[in-house]
């Protein structure tokens, strides 16, 4: 497929990796923010192409992984009601709540359905006027416009049996939380390309100035990721810290204005708890006052509870780039994709699941 296959060319990838080795004179630690990038890095063995002085650490960019347990529990409670059709993207269904996951609700007879788009959930509400259809609205800025459109269309089409359970998170505040930690070891970022297609690059300039880190907007294919790493290292070697766009075929610096306008209308920025990390100020979205009637938390009276997380799961440290998955004592033994302790082992984009699937527990070896 055009715009995919040519960015997976093995010879071109080796050339870029060689160029990275040529320009790097000292150790550098770079974080890829997005779980999609983590998955590609581990799947294609990109870290194994890099010289040993370049370390990639995996960031918190997996919305499935950072959705707090209490919201999973809320979803499970709503999904268990007989009047409800509960709809969700597939990978949320297996994320463990306090005692069970959404698939267990389905196994008990709950009407839990996987959808490809929030608009499919809206169509289900239109087709089932006697049922309450709830959509589990998780995601980063990339997914927010689609979820906002479902709510705006529900209002326009006067579909009153539709609501969303919102667990939306924002990327730049999480990057700032990582940078401001005294334990931070990240020297440069590969910013999440698809988040930037929506939001553009303006939110990163203050981070670059305050923390003097290069931030390179990066795509998801092997050549995209290697080019992002190369540009990041060029900046580090030169002592520069700038926002740079290495994914210019899809990201325009001002972002997607119609999508931003709809997000601003339907949502408002709120504090959010991130699973494994804790509360990050101004790091999430909730429905705006104008659209509060579509808020499933209010409609089903499940707001305002907090839950203790499993103490054995190290996913918080993995998501902050402080630990690698295989450094967790439960990795591959008490925690596997079939019986996950934490969400990073569930989502296809979670770092633990990627290592489990592609690395067979071994340390990456440099083969460049």
């Amino acid at each position, binding site marked *: 497929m055009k715009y995919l296959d040519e960015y997976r060319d093995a010879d071109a990838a080796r050339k870029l990796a060689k160029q990275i080795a040529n320009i790097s004179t000292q150790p550098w630690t770079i974080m890829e923010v997005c779980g999609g990038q983590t998955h590609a890095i581990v799947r294609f063995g990109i870290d194994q192409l890099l010289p040993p002085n370049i370390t990639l650490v995996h960031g918190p960019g997996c919305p499935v992984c950072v959705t707090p347990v209490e919201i999973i529990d809320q979803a499970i409670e709503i999904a268990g009601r007989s009047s409800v059709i509960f709809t969700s993207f597939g990978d949320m269904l297996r994320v463990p709540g306090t005692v069970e996951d959404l698939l267990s609700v389905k196994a008990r007879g709950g009407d839990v359905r996987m959808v*490809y788009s929030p608009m*499919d959930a809206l169509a289900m509400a239109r087709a089932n006027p006697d049922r309450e259809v709830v959509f589990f609205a998780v995601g980063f800025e990339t997914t927010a416009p689609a979820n906002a459109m479902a709510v705006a269309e529900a209002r326009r089409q006067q579909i009153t049996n539709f609501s969303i359970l919102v667990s939306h998170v924002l990327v730049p505040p999480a990057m700032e939380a990582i940078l401001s930690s005294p334990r931070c070891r990240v020297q440069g970022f590969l910013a999440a390309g*698809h988040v930037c297609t929506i939001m553009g690059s303006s939110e990163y300039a203050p981070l670059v100035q305050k923390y003097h880190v290069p931030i390179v907007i990066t795509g998801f294919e092997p050549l995209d990721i290697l080019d992002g790493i190369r540009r990041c290292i060029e900046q580090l070697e030169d002592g520069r810290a700038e926002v740079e766009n290495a994914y*210019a*075929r*899809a990201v325009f610096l001002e972002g997607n204005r*119609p999508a931003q306008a709809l997000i601003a209308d339907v949502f408002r920025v709120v504090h959010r708890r991130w699973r494994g990390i804790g509360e990050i100020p101004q790091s999430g979205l909730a429905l705006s006052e104008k659209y509060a009637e579509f808020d499933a938390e209010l409609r089903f009276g499940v707001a305002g509870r907090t839950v203790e997380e499993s103490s054995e799961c190290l996913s918080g440290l993995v998501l902050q780039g402080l630990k690698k998955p295989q450094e967790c004592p439960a990795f591959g033994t008490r925690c596997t994709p079939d019986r996950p302790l934490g969400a990073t082992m569930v989502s296809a984009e979670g770092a633990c699941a990627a290592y489990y699937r592609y690395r067979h527990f071994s340390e990456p070896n440099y083969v460049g």
Partner: protein
Amino acid sequence: MCLAVPGQIIQIEGDQPEARVGRVRFGGIVKDVNLAFVPEARQGDYVLVHVGFAISRIDEAEAARVFAYLKEIDSDEIPG
């Protein structure tokens, strides 16, 4: 989660910007895609599609940049 796949618009239906739907081809598969967020997209354009919505039009000239860079480092290398 933020997975977005490039595909080519082969047909557009609907005149209102918020109701524009495109038939988009991904390799051998064709799907209906909401074009509300890419009012500038035209038939023949490639768009990035995420959960049923086109979120960006792909810029062909920018797409060639990394390949131009690869050629450049090729020609910098001393033969032999």
